[in-house]
């Protein structure tokens, strides 16, 4: 009964997963490519349905050509029954079976809407997790107002629907990702009143050799800068949004310059009218499945919890590889390279031997892109003082409506000495999103209060989820069907 159906299952059809699936299938392995989305591409290569309007990928997507080619080759392999493409499959749990892995999925674009659809289980001898990441957030007064969105959310509306999330926008937070978001919004008709970047890019000048190893990244950045200039969008470095204002929806934000101590300077505050704030502080890797099966983790340069992998992208759990953002935030190019390495390695572990010449090129490329990612994280850190002046009344956990004051109370008055205890006492991270949004902030608030740095254990307390997506009980009770090609996305 537990005979695995495929050689390699890949979870996630973004840059890493697509590359992994193709590499494994090219090596001769039978592959299942499982993805929650309707169309493949992940967050990075998200594309609209044909009915959404005129779509010109070149203006929105870098390396779109690589996506189209990879996707086409996977389609060809699917036609030869070498790849199963399973779109609209939300993996909620992975468990070890005799000779591999059982991957349990809920089916549908929003499975909550299809409560009558039985879950699906896919069995595989090897598992590659390419689950990507989502925007990392820091709370500030007013961030729960409608009209405040994650930078990635604004981008997803644009890429996936050609819908602009507001008429007048401010883009804020930190990191190079803010630039394409601002460019996309401006291009599609929003008035972008500024990119409010907490850091300054001068740190790159200290690492010229690393930049040489990733010249395309430098090119991308200058292209975005040129486009922002064309749309008359100013980038204000070392500035932050200190407050969002409005009663039932966003009407404006207060922007201030950061002083030398990393705190906003009161006399520099000014009000900027807008109906959209797209905000992000880097990304948080999606590790639900990795942690379910016991993969070892570490804290990366950007303070994110990431999965530990070896040179071939294998995790500390036998038979499981990880590629892309879950092993460290580094962007789509790095994700593709890691995916290819993982796909080849997973296939090789089943007795296929891919050519080695290409591998050494891949390893060199990965090293260069990782060095670049490391520099990027050092140039665009979350400012250490970012949450120091957070007013007690500000929500930290949006789901359970837990304030900064309630969290401080558990530490200062109740003696909580780690984020897990804070979570148990004040309930941040216990609601619908299971700490995905407030986890990082709660950890930072707690650690800062206790005058120490966040540890792996701190971050794991908010990343460990026995179930990766909320499941209606009725679906749990339903017998699951065996996986077979359902959608054509994946």
């Amino acid at each position, binding site marked *: 009964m537990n005979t695995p159906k495929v050689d390699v299952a890949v979870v996630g059809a973004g840059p890493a997963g697509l590359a992994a699936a193709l590499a494994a299938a090219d090596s001769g392995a039978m592959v299942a490519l499982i993805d929650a989305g309707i169309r493949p591409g992940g967050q990075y290569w998200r594309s609209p349905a*044909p*009915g959404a309007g005129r779509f010109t990928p070149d203006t929105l997507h870098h390396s779109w050509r690589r996506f189209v080619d990879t996707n086409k080759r996977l389609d060809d392999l699917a036609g030869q029954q070498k790849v199963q493409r399973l779109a609209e499959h939300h993996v909620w749990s992975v468990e070890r079976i005799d000779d591999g892995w059982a991957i349990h999925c809920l089916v549908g*674009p*929003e499975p909550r*809407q299809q409560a009558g659809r039985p879950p699906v289980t896919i069995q595989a001898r090897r598992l590659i997790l390419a689950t990507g990441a989502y925007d990392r957030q820091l709370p500030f007064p007013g961030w729960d107002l409608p009209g405040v969105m994650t930078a990635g959310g604004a981008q997803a*509306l644009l890429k996936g629907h050609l*819908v602009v999330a507001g008429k007048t926008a401010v883009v804020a937070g930190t990191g190079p990702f803010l630039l394409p978001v601002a460019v996309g919004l401006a291009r599609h008709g929003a008035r972008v009143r500024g990119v409010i970047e907490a850091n300054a890019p001068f740190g790159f000048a200290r690492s010229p050799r690393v930049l040489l190893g990733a010249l395309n990244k430098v090119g991308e950045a200058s292209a975005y800068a040129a486009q922002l200039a064309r749309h008359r969008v100013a980038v204000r470095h070392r500035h932050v949004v200190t407050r969002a204002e409005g009663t039932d929806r966003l009407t404006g934000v207060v922007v201030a310059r950061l002083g030398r101590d990393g705190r906003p300077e009161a006399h520099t505050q000014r009000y900027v009218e807008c109906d959209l704030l797209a905000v992000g502080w880097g990304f948080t890797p999606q590790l639900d499945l990795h942690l379910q099966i016991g993969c070892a983790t570490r804290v990366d340069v950007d303070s994110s919890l990431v999965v530990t992998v070896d040179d071939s992208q294998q995790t500390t759990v036998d038979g499981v590889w990880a590629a892309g953002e879950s092993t460290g935030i580094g962007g789509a190019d790095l994700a593709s390279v890691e995916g290819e390495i993982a796909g080849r390695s997973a296939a090789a572990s089943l007795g296929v031997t891919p050519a080695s010449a290409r591998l050494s090129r891949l390893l060199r490329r990965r090293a260069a892109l990782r060095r670049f990612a490391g520099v990027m994280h050092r140039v665009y850190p979350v400012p250490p003082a970012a949450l120091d002046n957070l007013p007690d009344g500000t929500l930290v956990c*949006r789901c359970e409506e837990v304030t900064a004051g309630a969290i401080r109370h558990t530490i200062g008055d109740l003696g909580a000495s780690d984020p897990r205890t804070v979570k148990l006492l004040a309930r941040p991270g216990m609601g619908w*999103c299971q700490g995905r*949004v407030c986890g990082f902030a709660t950890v930072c608030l707690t650690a800062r209060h206790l005058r120490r740095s966040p540890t792996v254990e701190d971050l794991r307390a908010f990343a460990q989820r026995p179930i990766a997506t909320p499941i209606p009980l009725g679906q749990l009770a339903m017998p699951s069907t065996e996986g077979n090609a359902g959608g054509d996305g994946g």
Partner: protein
Amino acid sequence: MTGPAPFDITFDGEPIACRDGWTIGAALTAADVRSWRTTRHGQRPRGLFCGIGICFDCLVSVNGQPSVRACLAPARPGDDVRTQLGTGQ
């Protein structure tokens, strides 16, 4: 290139124009609707936040089914979308 014809859904009874392939969240956003849920404790308005199925802020009632993620649920002709209050029950 033109896709299938646009259609309507309703939000609290009012028609909302929608294109094929849009999610309910995209349709509401395009119609300048920013919130469609109130929170359990503070009764605060919520709408799209993460936009990719992570945060569950955009929960809405669709054809009588509560707690559907508007950012993921594809809009279908005639969908009856309603503001969700508190726990959604």
